[in-house]
Every structure is written in structure tokens, then in C-alpha cells.
């Protein structure tokens, strides 16, 4: 991605941002609230057209197959459908109202990989926070994306659950050579699981590099 500028209306939220992401690389994006992390993701997804600069994908098929776990979801306790059904919502290769055996197998496989088989037939509304996040992850992974983006998916989880979720992500990443973009405020977590970082600041300064070079100064809260 080179010299990306993205904006809502007249205000440039992101100004002249460039970075590279290799296949199979795990990148953590770090930065205070409101620096434009989610805005960057929206640009990657093509929901928001860049004002300037461009995003190059090595292969166009990547752009069309990005798995994204959004920052917030509007599902409450009353949310009625099962974990399995929720994950299946992302099956869109066919137009038929019913699922083919192939599609069912695909869902089962991803439920196994995300450790959700035990609660697959329970309503998602009754699942715990960690289980919900895993269900969101499973839905995003369903079509075997080449790029997976997690927008603060671990924010509401306890330490152990965070590790669990990221272990699943890393396992999938290694097995499928998926690139991962992980947005977080949790530095230890980023240090532990990622290969590289992108630090975004309010001053619209962007630094990037291998994760072991990440230095955060006192004045920068993330």
C-alpha cells in the first residue's frame, strides 16, 4: 500500500500512509483511539475509496477474499440463531436456499478448527464473550481468506481467552499461509504473536518494522 490518504468528507483521517504486508505475515496495528485504524481497514476492504494513493494486492483474488472480524457487532442476548447457522451466513458461492453437503462440510470443518463444535447448535446469543469472538472468527475464516483482519477482537476477553483466540489465528495463519492484520491496544499480545507492526499516531505519523524493533515512548499511549 503506498501513500494512502483516506477521509470522511473534508477531513483527512489518514494522511500519506505506506506499508507492505507479505504473504503469511502477521502485522499488528497499534495506535490510540481515533487515529484511523478502522478507517484503514475500511479502505482495505474497498468500503471507503482512498482520496489519494493506492492499495496494491499481489493478486486481485486477495482483494475479493478478505476475512474481516469487525470491531463491534450488534448482537444481543436474544440473538436467536445457532452458532452453526451464524457461521453459515457467510456461505455465498451458491444462490440455492439450502446448503449443499459440501457447504455443510465446510462449516463443520471451520467449527472444528475454531473449537466450536460443542456449542454449534446453541443460540449464539447465549454464548460467552470468548465463544462469540470465536464464532465471528469462524465466519470470517469460512471462505479461506488470503488476508484476515481482526479489529480489536480480543478487547473484551480475559488474558487466557486472548491467548486462545490468537493461538487459533496463528495456527490458521501457518497452515494456510494467510496474512493477518491484528488491530490492538494490547502491546504484550502484539509482541508475542506478530511478525511486524504499524504504529499510527494522532499526528498522522506512521512507523513500521519488525515487531522486536517496536519502541513506544512515554508520551505515546496506545
Amino acid at each position: 500500500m503506498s501513500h494512502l490518504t483516506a477521509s470522511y468528507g473534508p477531513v483527512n483521517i489518514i494522511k500519506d500512509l505506506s506499508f507492505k504486508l507479505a504473504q503469511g505475515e502477521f502485522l499488528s496495528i497499534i495506535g490510540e483511539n481515533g487515529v484511523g485504524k478502522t478507517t484503514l481497514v475500511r479502505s482495505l476492504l474497498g468500503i471507503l475509496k482512498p482520496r489519494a494513493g493506492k492499495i496494491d494486492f499481489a493478486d486481485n483474488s486477495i482483494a475479493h477474499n478478505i476475512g474481516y472480524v469487525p470491531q463491534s457487532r450488534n448482537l444481543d442476548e436474544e440473538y436467536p440463531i445457532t452458532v452453526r447457522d451464524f457461521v453459515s451466513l457467510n456461505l455465498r458461492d451458491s444462490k440455492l436456499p439450502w446448503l449443499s453437503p459440501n457447504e455443510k462440510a465446510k462449516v463443520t470443518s471451520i467449527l472444528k478448527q475454531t473449537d466450536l463444535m460443542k456449542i454449534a447448535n446453541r443460540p449464539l446469543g447465549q454464548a460467552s464473550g470468548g465463544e462469540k469472538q470465536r464464532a465471528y472468527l469462524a465466519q470470517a475464516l469460512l471462505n479461506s481468506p488470503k488476508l484476515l483482519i481482526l479489529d480489536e477482537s480480543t478487547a473484551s476477553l480475559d488474558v487466557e481467552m486472548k491467548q486462545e483466540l490468537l493461538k487459533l489465528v496463528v495456527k490458521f495463519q501457518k497452515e494456510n499461509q494467510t496474512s493477518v492484520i491484528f488491530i490492538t491496544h494490547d502491546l504484550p499480545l502484539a509482541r508475542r504473536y506478530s511478525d511486524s507492526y504499524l504504529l499510527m499516531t494522532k499526528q498522522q505519523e506512521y512507523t513500521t518494522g519488525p515487531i522486536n524493533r517496536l519502541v513506544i515512548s512515554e508520551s505515546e499511549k496506545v
Partner: protein
Amino acid sequence: MLSFDFMRHALVAGTFISIICGMMGVFVIARGMSFLTHTLAEIGFAGAAFGLFIGWPALNGMLLFTVLSSAMVGQLGVRSARRENVISAVSALFLGLGILFIALSDKSATSATSILFGSVIGISLSEVWQVVILSIVVAVVTLLMYRQLKFDSFDSVGARVNGINGAIISIVFLIMLALSVSVAAQIVGSLLIFILLTLPAASARYFVHSVSSMIALSIGFAVAGTWLGITLGYLTNWPTSFFIATIEVIFYLIGLIWYKRS
């Protein structure tokens, strides 16, 4: 009782109407549009009254008004139309118009009652055909966009980030809803539309937890209520709508108790 034409007509129309209402209801609830549906029914009432006034069949007047207004809501954006004060204002306007049209047309009060509370017994053969065709249109369109509609209705955030165009789905859905409301009003009347369009789906949610089984059960509740209601209406000469309403409420209560216990 099946030897009477009017009973056969009522049962055929009732069956088709119940099937699409049961199906659409699941999406209406998932999309949080129960209130909007009710408003659409009131708009339908004004449409039917308008039809009465200019000498059209009630169904045509309803179709005209509901389809036009749902296209308008689609333009406005469902989100802003869902705001309660907007809805109240729209309801007030259309109920007022409905009353005006009824007063202006020199028809008796019974026509008004049948628009408001339904009159499936007495539906003519050509009206049955109209109901059947409209129902098939709704069912086919819904099935064609089933996966996208399902994704958008049950996980709008996920649908959006996966590239589903929510605006188009919303508009098409609203128009299908307008058609459903208009045909459903033929049985239960515009005042009681939610008896068929939201209650069966709300009950189904208590029993089953996948979209397809919710649709199946919701259709089951709607059809069962309609058949029983029409039969009881025939046997007792009491209004069909009364029976259908009572039966659907019973299903709902059973669901509620079932849900609380498990």
C-alpha cells in the same frame, strides 16, 4: 363445508397468504421492522379506503399505497423511517386519510369494517387468483435473494463487510413486505396484520434456532391458525380474524412458557 365455493376460496387464499406471511415474518422480526410493518398496514388501510372511494377493489388500492410508500421509505433509508416519531406521524397522516376516503365514498360502514378487520369469507375467485399470483411473486423473489437477505437480516455488520449491498436488499425487501401486507389484510384486515406477519415468526423463535426451521415453523403456525380460524368462523359465524388472532396468541404463549422452562 368444502362444498361451498366461498369456503374453498377462503381456504386457498388463506393458505397462500399464511405461507408468505410466515416466511416474511422471520425476516421482519430479524430486521426489527415489526413497527414499520404495522405502519405499512395503516397505509394499506388508507389505500383500501381510497380504492373504495374511486371504485377500485380494496386490494388494488392497498397495493398502490403500500408499494409506493415502501419505495419512498427505501429512498429515505430504513434507519430514519424506523424512528418512532417519524412512524407515528406517517401513521397519523394515513389513518386520517383513510377515514376521509371512507367518509367521502358513500359506502356503508361494513366496507370499512372489512378493510380494518378482514373478510376472507366472501373473497371472489378473481381475488383468489390475485392473492395466489402475488404470493408466488413474493416467494420467488425472496428465495432468489435468500442467502443475501438472510445474511443482511441476521448479521447486518457482517453482511456489509462481506460486500453485500444492504440498500438494495432493503428496498426489495420492503416492496415484498408491502405486497405481503396487502394480501394479508385480505384475511385479517389491516388493523390485525401482525397476527399473521409477526406473531407466528415470534413464536417460532422460541422453539427453534436455525433460520430455515424458524421459517418452516412460522409458516406452520400461520397456516394452522388460518385453517382453524376459517373453520371455526364457518361453524360459529363469529369473525375469522378473532379466531386466528386467538390461536396465534396461544401459540405465542406456549412458546413463551416453553422458552422460560428450558
